[in-house]
């Protein structure tokens, strides 16, 4: 769980962490860091600009690298990233043993400086800079791969995931030099054997990019022998490239591997993936003022009186209800939450229209079969998927996502695979897991009885709606809060005078809206609002009367007699009297009270009147 949170950078205070953990759920066994090497062709061909001022392949690649760098900084700064060029004139690598390979960035965590350095390679200026520092020269992909292999082996940290992406527009880099081809194949195989996954991000080339003769042997075979691994069409658009890189750059991590139990001992292994998690501003780190080095925090629990440290066995947990303190061991508190072992249990199926829009309590997760855990899972899930979507039903399941986590009911909503024209997957095949609310989560509202609009009014609004139509795309908006935060950090890290301005994409473009609507908004207002009605005005009327009358008119004093007080004491109902009444009673009886708390007043009275 801790790792999960670290991944999303929201390991805040305990409470929050717990909640988050519950939502994202799951912990994983694999530890270590993810790594990604960009191996970019720097040959002359890469710098040729496209038609109509389209950016060159090199420029496009740098933009993508830049965006990966900055997104890594935000979402997974502990991942290691390297940028290596091949086919350069100059050489720069750790032992300078490879010619025409230029290690621009060693495998390391991306930082502000690196982002700047990649920025420097963008655009026309960037091309000039690249020509000056690296130049274009001979190509030996074998050497380049070897060099990358060294980068990996020089890393002392444990790497859990290694990926290498080749960006090139040349399908035959060695132009028929079979020795070099062979060498490259051997090196690629060596890399793959050490667990590196090699991807090809092939770019547009006049005459088309043919993967078959050379690169087919270089890249890693696609996962699970599907056809999708190798993108046969080259990328020619920045968007496409970005999408492709994005899809691969992040490692899929399950938040939980569970069994989906259909009943009668039929268990299917499935993985749950968090595909939408609220990104939060990171938590601050404490630094020592003198040196700016991070300090570690230690939390200790000790006894207030003796000052001795308390062991976990020396503390308990308590809650108070109905004036009674209820105490439990920490273990018991945990065990209350346990209902059953983690897993999904099929209850039945319901037609899709039974899944109400407002039955939403937390972001959905994605479910995909885990063939590696249980052979045959993919086939059964595939069959369920086909039939559920054909019949337009969802599966209702009871779900315990982690140990010691209470059950929730979820709807497994079928999602068929969709690919775009470039064969990039837009939606993966599997089930979306929608968490359903319990009775406690539904609040009782009392909807007001209101007049409704007439058809002409509705029609006018329809015109307004049509004028402001746009095509919404999930994730089209950046979070201004997070963006601003990182711009600020960037400015401070790079000693910039002021942070770069951000565009607040979720700010309504008021001028544009007004222009598009033209007279429509006034026409609508004339239809629904009477003259002189101001919807922006605050309903201040009520307040005023309260102010006028409220101050002077205090509640009349309520007095209680001694007998009544005594009666209350005997009945044990003295607590029901209000503080002013009790105070008044004290005054009457001549009791001096220092306290103003109810219990103090009651104690004083009880002491005076005796029992």
């Amino acid at each position, binding site marked *: 769980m801790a790792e999960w949170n670290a991944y999303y950078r929201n390991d805040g205070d305990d409470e929050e962490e717990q909640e988050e953990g519950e939502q994202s759920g799951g912990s994983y066994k694999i530890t270590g860091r993810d790594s990604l090497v960009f191996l970019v062709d720097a040959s002359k061909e890469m710098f040729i600009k496209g038609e109509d001022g389209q950016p060159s392949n090199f420029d496009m690649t740098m933009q993508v690298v830049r965006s990966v760098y900055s997104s890594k900084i935000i979402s997974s700064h502990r991942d290691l990233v390297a940028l290596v060029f091949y086919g350069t004139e100059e050489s720069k690598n750790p032992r300078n043993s490879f010619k025409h390979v230029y290690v621009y960035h060693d495998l390391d965590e991306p930082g502000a400086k690196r982002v700047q350095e990649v920025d420097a390679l963008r655009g026309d200026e960037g091309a000039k800079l690249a020509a000056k520092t690296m130049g274009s020269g001979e190509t030996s992909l074998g050497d380049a791969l070897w060099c990358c292999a060294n980068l990996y082996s020089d890393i002392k940290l444990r790497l859990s995931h290694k990926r290498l992406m080749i960006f090139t527009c040349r399908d035959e880099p060695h132009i028929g030099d079979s020795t070099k081809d062979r060498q490259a194949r051997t090196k690629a195989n060596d890399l793959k054997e050490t667990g590196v996954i090699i991807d090809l991000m092939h770019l547009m080339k006049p005459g088309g990019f043919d993967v078959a003769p050379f690169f087919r042997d270089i890249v890693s075979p696609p996962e699970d022998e599907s056809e999708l691994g190798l993108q046969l069409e080259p990328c020619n658009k920045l968007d496409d490239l970005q999408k492709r890189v994005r*899809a691969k750059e992040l490692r899929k991590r399950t938040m939980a591997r569970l069994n989906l139990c259909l009943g009668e001992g*039929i268990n299917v292994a499935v993985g749950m993936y968090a595909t939408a998690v609220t990104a939060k501003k990171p938590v601050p780190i404490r*630094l020592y003022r003198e040196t700016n080095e991070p300090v570690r925090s230690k939390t200790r629990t000790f006894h207030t009186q003796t000052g001795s440290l308390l062991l976990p066995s020396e503390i308990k947990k308590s809650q108070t209800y109905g004036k009674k303190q209820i105490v439990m061991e920490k273990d018991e508190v945990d065990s209350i939450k346990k209902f059953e072992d983690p897993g999904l249990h099929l209850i039945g199926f319901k037609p899709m229209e039974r899944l109400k829009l407002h039955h939403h309590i937390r972001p959905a997760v994605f479910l995909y079969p885990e063939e590696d855990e249980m052979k045959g899972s993919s086939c059964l899930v595939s069959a369920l998927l086909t039939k559920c979507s054909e019949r337009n039903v969802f599966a209702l399941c009871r779900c315990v996502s982690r140990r010691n986590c209470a059950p929730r009911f979820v709807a497994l909503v079928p999602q068929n695979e969709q690919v775009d024209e470039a064969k990039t997957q837009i939606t993966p095949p599997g089930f979306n897991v929608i968490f359903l609310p319990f*009775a*406690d989560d539904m609040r009782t509202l009392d909807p007001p009885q209101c007049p*409704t*609009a007439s058809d002409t009014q509705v029609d006018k609004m329809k015109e307004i709606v049509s004028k402001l139509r746009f095509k919404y795309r999930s994730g089209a908006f950046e979070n201004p809060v997070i963006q601003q935060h990182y711009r600020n950090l960037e400015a401070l890290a790079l000693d910039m005078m002021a942070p770069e301005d951000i565009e607040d994409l979720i700010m309504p473009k008021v001028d544009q809206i007004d222009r598009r609507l033209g007279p429509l908004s*006034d026409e609508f207002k004339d239809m629904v609002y009477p003259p002189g009605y101001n919807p922006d005005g605050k309903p201040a009327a009520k307040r005023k009367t309260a102010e006028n009358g409220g101050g002077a008119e205090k509640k009349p004093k309520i007095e209680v007699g001694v007998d009544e007080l005594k009666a209350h004491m005997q009945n044990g109902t003295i607590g029901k009297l209000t503080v002013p009444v009790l105070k008044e009673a004290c005054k009457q009886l001549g009791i001096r009270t220092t306290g103003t708390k109810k219990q103090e007043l009651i104690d004083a009275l009880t002491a005076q009147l005796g029992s």
Partner: protein
Amino acid sequence: MAGSRSALVLCMDVGLSMSNNAPGEESAYEQAKKVMQKFVQRQVFAETKDELALVLFGTDSTNNRLDQDGQYQNITVHRHLMIPDFELLEEIENQIQPENSQADWLDALVVCMDLIKTETKDKKYDRFIIALLTDLSTQASSEHLDVIIENLKQTDITLQFFLPFPAEEDEDENGGRDADRRGPGHPGTGKGLTSEQRDGLDMVKHVMLTLDEDEGLGEIYTFRNAIEQLRMFKRIEKRPTAWPCQLTIGSCLSIRIIGYKAVTDEKMKKMWVTVDAQSNQREDVKRETVYCLDDDNETEVQMDDTIQGFRYGSDIVPFSKVDQDQMKYRHDGKCFAVLGFTKQSLVQRHHFMGNQVMKIFPAKDDEHAAVALSSLIRALDELEMVAIVRYAYNKVSNPQVGAAFPCVKQNYECLMYVQLPFMEDLRLFTFPSLENNKKFTPSESQLSAVDSLIDSMMLVEEEEDGEKKDLFKVHQIPNPAFQRHFQCLHHRALNPDTPLPAMEPWLKAALERPEVISERCKAPLGDVKKQFPLTEVEKKKQLKTSAQIFGKDSEEPDAKKAKGDEEEGEYNLADIAEGSVTSVGSVDPARDFRTLIKQKTLPFGEACQQLTHRIEQLLSNKNTHYYMKSITCIQAFREQSIKLENADLYNSYLQSLKRSIPNRGLGVFWDLLVQVSCF
């Protein structure tokens, strides 16, 4: 409406006839007591401001205000009107018992009315309720019945009766109109009622129907039904807070609205408090966080000597709170502004973010706003579109982007707002195709097996009258976590020294597949089992969890295991953070050992043991390279032992090693060791 509350008097018959029971059945007394217990329990845990009094009748003694001249005898006010607590629950459990007298239930009712009258004056209540639990076996004098009814009407007291038998027995037998509600086999229905009971029942019906012609009889319950209804702890209810705002479209068009949370991931209201195990006092426990430098001495630094910083990739940027506040993103506060309109189908259900749904209504008592909002809702509904809006709760909260869906119901209309993801929130994963993979493509027979499984497991059925019936409505099930929580708290409060109880059977059953479905799907499931061979894959050696490394007993209770898990999580975190270690590995044992000692991950002795184990492994290889590695280990061992001023383990290990050199033919190694190290 804060402070709204009701006053309720429980009035229970503990008289002689109540303890009669048919063989194998609980007595009316026991049942009535259960009803009260369950009810009070719910009140206590719901922590409402409702107040409660308890009046017993049929008691041997008499204690009430009206006790005079032999009137109102054998009626005891056990507890005055106040907020119920555990004391009351304990009293019901331990003090109340069946007694040997009888009292007129109408007299008892009068005592209750008097109690409400005297104890509720000067304070505001919005409801008065008297609940009578009796078997009606005592002859009641109907003399003042009219006066009583008139009084009840005047004081606006709601009367409820809890009886051991149903009030409308005859109808049960005739048409069974209410059979569903009443349930079968109530005790008492079989053996018939005594004449007193019949008279009593007639009187009860008379009273109830006079008070409320239509619904009066609905307030007469049987014990059994009440127990069933009350077994659930009250659902957590929160008064919805209104969020008034303006919906804006551009700069010219705005509509006054009011928003309410309609669905939200409800959490337990109370948190656990840490207390000292001996005194049970929270004041005795203090938590303190100290900061220390990451050096060998773990030098402590004062909070004041630290500043705040943030990570920017590999850089750590000092960024004070003041600067942060000054530079942070600012906005104009509360808003609900339309960015544009889009097709409903473009907003994907599985991209709903946040953990709530808000319903938007027009501002209160503003019919113009109502009409304006209604036009928007209807326009969107008819065009199947949604509004994409910018939403900010207030000035200090972060703005969101979200969708406002139209919702047109029979008796009301509203917009429903749900948060949508930002670019930063989405993780777009690619998964291998299932369809295009021949290995996973299900055959026709496999597909039809799944088809009939779905048929047999449909939870929504069409009834004869064309009505659709949902067999499993999740949003009507109480959150089992809360139910279980209160069950355990309740148990512990009343039985402090006993272990926690098992889960209540009804709760367990409520979470299971409905019986009908289970029966129906047996055969199709069998078919699926036959059609789809599933074999568990033999796991490759998994990375050891810390629990395994430390040899934790797998038989430990689950709670403990979970703890182990948490620890594991922490290690993982540390792992990422510093590439740290949980045991002495074989790659760089010396480094691992140093880290372990520094971080105090393992006790010193255990770390040493792991290290010497590695050294022995290395030495079994008889190769200079491995010898050198062993030597670095021994050096680390020595260095750390000196640092910790605990050289016993080191010395004894080295001595035993030296002794074993000749036997193991490790002369070369020893020479090397002597050469490299300068002892």
